[in-house]
């Protein structure tokens, strides 16, 4: 794609370029952003390594003993040392379920945002590049879809699927359904952002130059214009992942998301909710805290990126 760039000096390696970049430099200077970035990296690596790090396998029913249920974390009385953060109502080790839950939540959040991004980029690029009827038609659809709340659409779609599939089959498909529904519900965000950047870029000289050189539309769109829309995309992506994780948690809390046997952070909070009345606060509080910290660092990173990259975000 990029063979048209004539280079006289050797391009430094990607890592080298990243380390010398303004982005990395300002990240090191901003304490809040650096802390958020570290926490985010920590969470992601812990989630990826969950099967190695977790002391128990929460998916394995034979490792669960109901006699161990509702044990408090180790710093409380009546706790057991092998369950560091206590156990849930089924006797599963809370630390292990949280590690696996974070894995599921992050997986759904990132995959859903990739889907949103793909759909939004395709629609936004074509709307902005071709303009005219195509543009007004696509953007009107985006407007209408945005006027319906994502959560509402997701709740309705998942509820209908759950009712028609039956709970058992649904629980097997829940992961894919969540990614698809959250992915489809938020594409207009990306479409609008990409379209706005494309409109700003498409009359610049390099686009004219590319056209005169006889490149076809898809090459100009993907190879030339798209790279220049990446920084606004990066800014909204962090916030979108945070929102997708919240949406997933909310849907799981309503019983429309991940089943209890394959918990995400949302379904962990949901399964602990009824036990707070009997004083077992940790089943809800600890996964809740992890969820809030995860979402908060993503929001803080998004704020920081917005300040640093300062893209002209699409505003109504």
């Amino acid at each position, binding site marked *: 794609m990029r063979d048209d760039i004539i280079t006289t000096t050797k391009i430094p390696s990607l890592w080298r370029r990243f380390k010398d970049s303004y982005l990395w430099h300002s990240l090191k200077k901003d304490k809040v952003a650096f802390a958020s970035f570290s926490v985010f990296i920590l969470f992601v690596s812990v989630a990826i390594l969950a099967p190695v790090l977790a002391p128990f396998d929460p998916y394995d029913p034979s490792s669960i003993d109901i006699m161990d249920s509702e044990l408090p974390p180790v710093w409380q009385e009546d706790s057991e040392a092998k369950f560091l953060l206590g156990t849930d109502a089924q006797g599963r080790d809370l630390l292990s379920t949280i590690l696996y839950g974070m894995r599921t939540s992050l997986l759904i959040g990132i995959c859903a945002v990739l889907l949103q991004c793909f759909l939004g980029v395709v629609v936004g690029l074509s709307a902005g590049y071709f303009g005219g009827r195509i543009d007004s038609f696509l953007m009107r659809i985006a407007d209408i879809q945005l006027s319906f*709340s994502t*959560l*509402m659409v997701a709740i309705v779609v998942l*509820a209908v699927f759950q009712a028609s599939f039956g709970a058992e089959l649904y629980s097997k498909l829940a992961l894919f359904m969540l990614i698809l529904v959250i992915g489809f519900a938020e594409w207009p965000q990306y479409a609008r952002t990409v379209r706005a950047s494309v409109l700003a870029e498409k009359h610049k000289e390099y686009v004219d130059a590319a056209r005169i050189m006889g490149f076809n539309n898809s090459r100009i769109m993907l190879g030339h214009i798209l790279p220049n829309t990446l920084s606004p995309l990066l800014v909204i992506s962090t916030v979108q992942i945070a929102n997708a994780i919240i949406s997933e948690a*909310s849907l799981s809390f*309503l019983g429309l998301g991940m089943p209890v046997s394959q918990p995400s952070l949302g379904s962990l909070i949901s399964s602990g909710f009824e036990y*707070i009345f009997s004083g077992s606060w940790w089943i809800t509080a600890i996964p*809740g805290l992890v*969820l*809030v910290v995860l979402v908060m660092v993503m929001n803080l990173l998004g704020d920081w990126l917005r300040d640093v990259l300062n893209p002209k975000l699409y505003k109504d």
Partner: protein
Amino acid sequence: MIAFLINRLFQAAIVMFVISLLSFSIQDNLGDPLRELVGQSVSEADRMELREELGLNDSFLTQYFRFAGKAIQGDLGTSYFFKEPALEVILKKLPATLELVFGATVLIIVISIPVGVYSAINPSSLFSKIAMGISIIGISVPVFLTAIIFIYIFSVELGWLPSFGRGVTEHVFGTWETGFFNLDGLLHLLLPCISLASIMLPLFIRLIRAEMMEVLQSEYIKFAWAKGLSPRRIWFMHALKNTMLPVITVGGVQIGTMVAYTILTETVFQWPGMGFLFLEAVNRVDTPLIVAYLIVVGAIFVITNTIVDLIYGLVNPTVKLVGEK
């Protein structure tokens, strides 16, 4: 203006048509109305006869037009569980949900405007920094978790406030049951309303702050300062007016969003509203009730969006009233 109005109403009608089509295809595919009607014990021949009689063998479009014709007259079928007209069941629960949304909206307006304006005028003051810090936490806490935390603190630990239900309600205007006119009802409203408001509040504070800061940089405000107007007059007369324009659009969309969030708050607080009813209907596969909810909520979205568009068109002189943006 008339063209703009007609354009928007036309668009609203199309969206409602799509919603009704989707709702109907859900009704068509979900559950078997015959089994709900006669149970398992009827012979196959009788079933076929009944299907023919009820028009279930007609084409999709014929059935849709029959459904739409009845829907326009307010007949959305009979709930399998309640054995009452589905629309009536939904509308009976509507006041509970609307009161929740109303209470939360009042909280949002009363808190977000002063805080947003103050932190735009004094961006470096301690209060503004704390407000911004709290709002980033607020955005990151899902609404159901806020609700759970409130229940744990105020109901379980302190025992000050009730954790579920609407408490004592009174009848006003005939069938409207309200919890606003007595202490018990208000106490029951407090936690759900704060939880519901908590998700939108940070968003509005940040939005008002950002818009206001942008407006304060503009030429006409500098001119107003140069003219020697009093700060109050500049802030609240000149700047606030233009700040509120984008807030109105976002606000309209968010009212719809809040209806979605009521499903979450109603579930946590077992609030007898539409959202709670909807989830129950889903669990019972009560198709007519699901469809009625979709149509009522769809209508709420379409109506609020159309009204917001019209208000925005009226308030903002730069909107081209032909309807094309």
